[in-house]
């Protein structure tokens, strides 16, 4: 009698309610090998993009994913602006950074909240989600929607921040700061969280480099890689923030890193609101998109987002392609899961903050 057998995990309800299927070879309770199967939420978005004009694709790319719904249109617009050879007004660049960081805080708090839920600590999950609600109120109050900000347009931003919304945003940030600090302390010291998350799903530095993981997954394993610093865009070079890194590379360190990044994002937001110059928030008129191809990349909450656009001079893209962080990160799950317990699979999957709808689009 063979002591190993294959356990199907998924496609539904592995960590988030997003479909992902694993064939897990287990020996008793221990995972020996993992095989991933993807493709359950393929919606043909790249083909859809080729059948829509430049403007319609702002809305389409915003709907690729809900948690990083600002990073997609932002990178898409950056690629188009690179192609057209135009420079976005400085105020618009600040507004873009603000929108990105608001989304980052909400996304990171969501992920650490889900981690508490997977540990079985639902009261902490509810508390983390309640803290996140402060940022949700910012999105709803300043942008007009809780998830899809609708902040961007080709050549600038659609929204502007006046004195009233600036005051509102600063109030909310002041409300958020002590709560996030408190949350950091809970995640750092709570014995339940520590027992379940420390030392599991370890991704050592050499493997992180080999699998070319990005975002918080890479940074928690000691790879100091952040697009905001490595290939600065918008106004990031002028902003004062530290790229958070860690060396443990386990589930716990990735969660802690996300909370620390949220704290950095709060500071970025405060700097932006303070330094934002007066001026137009977008270029006047319509930006003509010439024939040619261009790329752009940016740091989404989960890591590097890469956009490629090719235009034949008409009002529709000839090709629009994007690569999302989860594409690199989920391959590393094979390293993280090797030797773990079956009960830890959801925690490890959640720790890479997978976004299946981005990756399979």
């Amino acid at each position, binding site marked *: 009698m063979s002591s190993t057998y294959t356990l199907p995990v998924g496609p539904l309800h592995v960590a988030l309610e997003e479909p992902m299927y694993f064939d897990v070879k287990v020996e008793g309770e221990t995972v020996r090998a993992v095989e991933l199967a993807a493709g359950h939420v393929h919606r043909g978005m790249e083909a859809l993009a080729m059948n829509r004009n430049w403007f319609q694709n702002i809305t389409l790319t915003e709907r690729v994913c809900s948690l990083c719904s600002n990073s997609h249109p932002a990178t898409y617009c950056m690629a188009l602006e690179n192609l057209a050879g135009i420079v976005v007004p400085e105020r618009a660049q600040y507004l873009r950074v603000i929108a990105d960081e608001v989304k980052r805080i909400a996304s990171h708090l969501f992920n650490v909240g889900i981690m508490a839920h997977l540990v079985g600590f639902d*009261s902490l999950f509810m508390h983390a989600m309640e803290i996140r609600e402060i940022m949700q109120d910012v999105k709803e109050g300043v942008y007009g929607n809780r998830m*899809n900000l609708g902040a961007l*347009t080709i050549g600038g931003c659609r929204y502007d921040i006046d004195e009233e919304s600036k005051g509102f945003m600063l109030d909310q940030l002041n409300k958020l700061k002590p709560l996030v600090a408190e949350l950091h302390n809970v995640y750092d010291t709570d014995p339940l969280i520590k027992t379940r998350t420390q030392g599991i799903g370890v991704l050592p530095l050499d493997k992180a480099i080999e699998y070319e993981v990005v975002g918080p997954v890479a940074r928690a394993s000691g790879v100091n890689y952040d697009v905001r610093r490595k290939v600065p865009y918008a106004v990031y070079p002028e902003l004062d923030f530290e790229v958070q890194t860690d060396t443990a590379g386990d589930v716990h360190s990735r969660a802690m890193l996300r909370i620390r990044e949220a704290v950095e994002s709060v500071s970025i937001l405060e700097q932006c609101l303070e330094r934002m110059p007066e001026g137009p928030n977008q270029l006047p008129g319509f930006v003509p998109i010439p024939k040619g191809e261009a790329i752009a990349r940016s740091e989404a909450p989960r890591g590097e987002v890469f956009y490629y656009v090719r235009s034949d001079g008409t009002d529709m893209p000839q090709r629009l392609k994007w690569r999302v962080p989860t594409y690199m990160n989920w391959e590393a799950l094979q390293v993280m899961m090797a030797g773990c317990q079956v009960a830890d699979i959801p925690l490890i999957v959640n720790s890479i903050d997978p976004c299946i709808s981005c990756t399979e689009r």
Partner: protein
Amino acid sequence: MLPFLKIMVKNLLAGPSTEAFPFAPAHTPARFRGKANHDKNKCILCGICRHVCAAGAIQMRVVEDGSGVEYVLWHNSCVFCGLCAHYCPTKALTMTDDWHLAHRGEDRFAVREDSFVRYGQCSTCGARIQPRPAVIVEALGTRYPDRFMMCPSCKRESLAKRSVPAKPDMETSETSDE
């Protein structure tokens, strides 16, 4: 030990943080992007809203007798991105803060903005032109009020017949006609 216990007790004492909707009105911020609203008195039928709409929620169809355009925006197709309102040059399309869009399944095609926008008429020859509603005339047509109400060919004619010659030594067409 158990650092969360204190927070939990605090949360417990604070009571529920959800809103009492539907028994009490829910808070809606002023900038909320809800149901789109089309004002036929501002619309000039430029069609940019339909062009930028990723959802294809907007339809503009010329009515049979050619007197105007039937403008339809289906709220069920709309994704509330607000691009139409952003690009609308006359702000005929706006996003309201109304999010009360619940309706019965059989009404799904009836929940829509439905308006009839009448074409304008050239003040000289009566040809069909884009609408010239009063608010638009006040906003855009004050520089050359006469020409603003004309069709393109009458406009060219009137420009060619200007009494002021383009160059001082040239004779205008107006004088040569006489």
